[in-house]
């Protein structure tokens, strides 16, 4: 059986923009990902490490099907759920219940499916159901995050993409999320976890890769990759994510 995630020679490019923010016809493209090939099995957790601007979120967006490959091929099997930009679609004036429904439908669940999973999601988020009938702007950011994460983790995904989102959660909720992700993985979900938390990658991921300047520099077992990344971070030049032409040219 084919793997739930297959990536072959993936390139993701962005067209150049001028100072006013409009897209230019001419000029060099910015390549966020260059020639990525990756295969992730069902029930596997793959960790992605790398400095800011390395292309981690772009990789997740490609796997989520949001970005079409500029070159190459990305194939996923089954429902893809992503914990990226959880604030998208959340309206602060709507109630938690209304936002929960919208979040679920955006993920590809039917309204009936969202209603069927409603109790599980609310129980997972740990929020009093009475509070969910109040506008979201009356909650803390953390509570809004819990609802959004709950919807994603109870959408029965075949592929789960997690982007550093757990960093904003408190310790108890984070532990609950990791338990749920592990449950999903045991049931055959392929998980891609982007994080700067090396200990988390070491404990949760089976394999991991270091992404740098849009390319995988190292892919191995999670323990080995984290060890390599720690070494690399000590010796990496300060300009690891320096823009084309250098910082001075950007400032000017």
């Amino acid at each position, binding site marked *: 059986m084919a793997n739930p995630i297959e990536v072959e020679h993936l390139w993701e490019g*962005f*067209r150049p923009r001028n100072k006013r923010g*409009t*897209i230019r016809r001419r000029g060099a493209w910015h390549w966020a990902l260059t020639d990525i090939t990756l295969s992730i099995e069902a029930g596997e957790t793959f960790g992605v490490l790398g400095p800011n601007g390395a292309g981690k979120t772009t990789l997740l*967006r490609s796997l*989520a*099907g*949001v*970005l*079409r490959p500029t070159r190459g091929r990305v194939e996923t099997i089954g429902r893809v759920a*992503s914990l*990226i*930009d959880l*604030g*998208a*679609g959340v*309206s602060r*004036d*709507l109630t938690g219940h*209304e936002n929960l*429904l*919208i979040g679920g*439908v*955006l*993920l*590809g669940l*039917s*309204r009936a499916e969202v209603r069927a999973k409603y109790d599980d999601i609310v129980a997972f988020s740990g929020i009093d159901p009475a509070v969910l009938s109040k*506008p979201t702007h009356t909650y803390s950011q953390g509570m809004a995050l819990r609802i959004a994460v709950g919807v994603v983790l109870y959408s029965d995904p075949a592929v789960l993409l997690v982007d550093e989102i757990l960093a904003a959660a408190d310790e108890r909720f984070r532990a609950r999320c990791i338990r749920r992700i592990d449950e999903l993985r045991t049931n055959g979900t392929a998980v891609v976890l982007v994080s700067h938390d090396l200990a988390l990658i070491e404990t949760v991921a089976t394999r991991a890769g270091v992404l740098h300047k849009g390319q995988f520099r190292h892919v191995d077992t999670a323990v080995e990759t984290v060890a390599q990344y720690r070494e690399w971070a000590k010796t990496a030049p300060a300009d690891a994510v320096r823009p084309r032409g250098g910082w001075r040219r950007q400032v000017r």
Partner: protein
Amino acid sequence: MTGRGKRRTSELWWTLVERQIRLRAKRTLFGALWPAFSPFLLLALYVFVFHSVFRVPVRRYPVYLFAGLLPWTFLAQTLAQGPTAISNDPDLVRRAPFRYEILPLSLVGVMAVYFIATLAMFVAYLAIQGELVWKMLLVLPLPVIALSLFIGGVVMILSIVDVYTRDVRLVLGNIITVWFFLVPIVYRPAMAKGAVRSLRRVDPMNMLVGVFRDVLYQGHLSRPLNTVLILGICAVFFAVCLAVFRHFAVNLPRDV
């Protein structure tokens, strides 16, 4: 698109329509009633200006005016918000893959709900006054569908253009004002001469206002074939706009 894909698209469309209607109702006293009532406020103003002051020679002028003003308000209110239908929700586009035309079309859906509510009030008023030709209610869905398709097409194009250049939203208000006076809404068609009359021949809004007026004011279709023809033209226009939208929407998450 598969059956599941179609169901997902229609559920998402309806969920976004519901979300916008709920959002418009939040932190207001009369909620979603305002957009449904705003055409009546315009009606009062225009009746005063064009009937009482300029004395436009039309029998039952308020009914004549409202039969044209109602579809126009649907168009003008939707177009005014159309350019930002995608630009205002960039995170939504970047979060999950879906048919992006749902965003402008959900706006059309919201405004259509208000339009139909106002239309129902107007029809009820005509019925109470004894001015309604009941059999014309069977024809009424045709111009409503045609108008929705026409507005849907225009809004899709405006929303995708706005992603790449914001100039359209800045000039659109002026275009709508000029367009309003080219369509015979506040005056009789025969009162305009020359170039304006020629321009009207190619303006779908002129034809649509004519059909609405036939149904709600005249009580008979002056050109029955035209009613079917305009529905066909609007359906083709919508299909062309959808194809153009999809062509340019391929890179939307990258460009928005």
